[in-house]
């Protein structure tokens, strides 16, 4: 299994009492809650944490894109990837990912990713996402065209990376007389593509297509759901006539390791609960604007689980559901072995800092995980291994 340190770069100093006045830490939370003096320290601290992960032997570091939110302070993740491209010496740099439909000029993603790929000499992983629902409120982009725009922007980027320019691109949402990318990507034909997603059948089928074989990265599903989605990917691959490798499947989730189970749980508790209940807090209308998901799946969600999006998650609950790995190195090794076996994944994007978790704890978390957990899972890439 390969390990990546995934940073969301939250506004860790968030006044958690905001919930008494505001419904969410995204979109509607006044930016007077943000203090630039603290922000300056946090950005630099978080970059240090990713650089430390590289020194500790993680296979890569990951950043991502969010807008108008205390949950993630990277509206332009390439700024962070650019800063890391000179300091991360061994590992890969992953942007998980840019939200393609939100852009009026998606060619800029082809350009910035190609730059990063050139600077790092091919140590770059290209993530493409649709952006979360609330970002359609934040940007004004019409969510009912989200999927169309995602596919069109994706096709444009891949063509820009792989076809000789200049050529014209004639799309419904995007059109160009001249597509002629300077620089071309360093990796040929193009950087590895990862698709972080909650996981709809359509997305998984599309990602697993033999033309693409993109890495499907599950984000925030409980382990039972994630296991089903990994099976879906493998089944889609079988239907296409090939066997999916564990290298095509990954999972992102928060992890906390300390000397003993009791210490780990005690130290993590306020921060992981803040992460799920305060930083991620959103209404259905924010998370699922019309057209972002199909009417049928939205209906199922409204009828069966009206409350779940605003549910109060305890450490005990998210631990049990497999949405959070917490404990001593031994406990985390065991849980992870179980995950690897059940999910058949080859990539783990570990969120080692979550919510308000301070630097000292994040640092020790990274060190313990790198020294006591990662070595037990090295050099195993298996084909179609899920039981």
């Amino acid at each position, binding site marked *: 299994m390969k390990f990546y340190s995934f940073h969301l770069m939250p506004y860790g100093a968030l006044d958690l009492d905001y919930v008494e006045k505001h419904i969410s830490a995204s979109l509607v939370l006044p930016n007077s809650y943000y203090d630039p003096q603290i922000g300056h320290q946090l950005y630099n601290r978080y970059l240090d944490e990713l650089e430390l992960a590289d020194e500790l032997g993680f296979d890569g570091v990951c950043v991502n894109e969010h807008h108008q939110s205390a949950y993630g302070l990277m509206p332009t993740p390439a700024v962070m990837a650019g800063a890391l491209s000179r300091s991360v010496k061994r590992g890969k740099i992953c942007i998980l990912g840019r939200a393609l439909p939100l852009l009026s000029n998606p060619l800029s993603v082809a350009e910035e990713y190609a730059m990063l790929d050139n600077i790092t000499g091919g140590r770059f992983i290209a993530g493409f996402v649709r952006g979360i629902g609330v970002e*359609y*409120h934040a940007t*004004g*982009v*019409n*969510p*009912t*065209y989200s999927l169309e725009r995602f596919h069109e922007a994706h096709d444009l980027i891949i063509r820009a990376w792989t076809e000789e320019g200049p050529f014209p691109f004639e799309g419904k949402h995007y059109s160009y007389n001249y597509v002629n990318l300077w620089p071309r990507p360093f990796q040929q034909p193009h950087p590895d593509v990862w698709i972080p997603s909650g996981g709809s059948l359509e997305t998984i089928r599309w990602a697993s297509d033999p033309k693409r074989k993109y890495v499907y990265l599950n984000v925030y599903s409980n382990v039972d759901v994630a296991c089903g989605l990994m099976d879906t990917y493998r089944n889609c691959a079988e239907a296409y006539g090939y066997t999916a490798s564990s290298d095509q499947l990954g999972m992102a989730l928060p992890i906390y390791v300390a000397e003993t189970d009791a210490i780990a749980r005690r130290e993590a508790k306020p921060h992981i609960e803040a992460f799920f209940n305060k930083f991620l807090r959103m*209404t*259905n*209308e*924010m998370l699922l*604007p*019309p*057209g972002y998901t199909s*009417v049928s799946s*939205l*209906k199922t969600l*409204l*009828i069966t689980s009206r409350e779940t999006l605003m549910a109060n998650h305890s450490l005990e609950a998210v631990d049990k559901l497999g949405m959070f790995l917490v404990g001593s190195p031994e406990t985390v090794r065991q849980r992870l072995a179980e995950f690897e076996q059940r999910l058949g994944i080859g990539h783990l994007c570990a969120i080692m800092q979550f919510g308000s978790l301070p630097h000292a704890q994040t640092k020790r978390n990274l060190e313990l995980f790198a020294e006591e957990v990662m070595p037990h899972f090295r050099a195993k890439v298996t084909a179609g291994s899920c039981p």
Partner: protein
Amino acid sequence: MVTEHRIDIRGCQVAYQRGGKGEPLLLLHGMDGRASWESVLSRLTEHHDVILPDHPGFGASGSGEWIDGMADLALFYLDVLDALQIESCHLSGHCLGGWLAAEIAVMQPQRFKSLSLCAAAGIRVDGCPMGDAFLWNPDDTIGQLIVDPQARETMRAKQSSERDIELMLKARQMSARLAWHPRFHNPHLRKWLHRLTMPTMIQWGENDRLFPVAYAHGYHAMIPNAQLHLYRDCGHFPMLDATDRYLEHLDAFTAKASA
């Protein structure tokens, strides 16, 4: 007596209700679909031959997946009128349907004997933000948009069954497709409102929290010879909150326009 019909317009099934005595009145529903018209429809048919379609993407009509904006939908309705062989009629729209009515009327003003716009989308009044209906949950929406407690209950009752929820989600999705951005308006429409030279009436609730009453004044200032009726203790649905006043004005207005 109102009856249900279906007609195929360029591959899209359009479901509509039609009935009543008088001249044809094409009635265009708003972002909630036909639901808010159910209780007043029979009274409307006393003086009009009412045609009340589900817009593509709403209710029992087809999805109209190729309809990408209000201009497409307006031209689509000119096809609907052609197919129904309606050469001339009264045109009336509420909310999203008011915007649609204004777009259609700008395209073929000579075709319409009168135009009535009720709590209509379509323009933006700078400095006076609209409500953000896409951030309200279904219960908030009713509270924000309807003043009368009984009308609130009536509308709540229309959101209970699984079928109701599906219709509500469909309506929301097509509304977003047409009106997410620019939000509930066409920035170019105001350039052409001078073409609305037919008798025009604007009806609005003073307590409309989606399109505040400044929007009524905005339309009133831009459409030549328009008459304006504002209703007290009335939200975004004058036909629910101010039913009698709404109908009285509409009946008198179309009667005069026909004379």
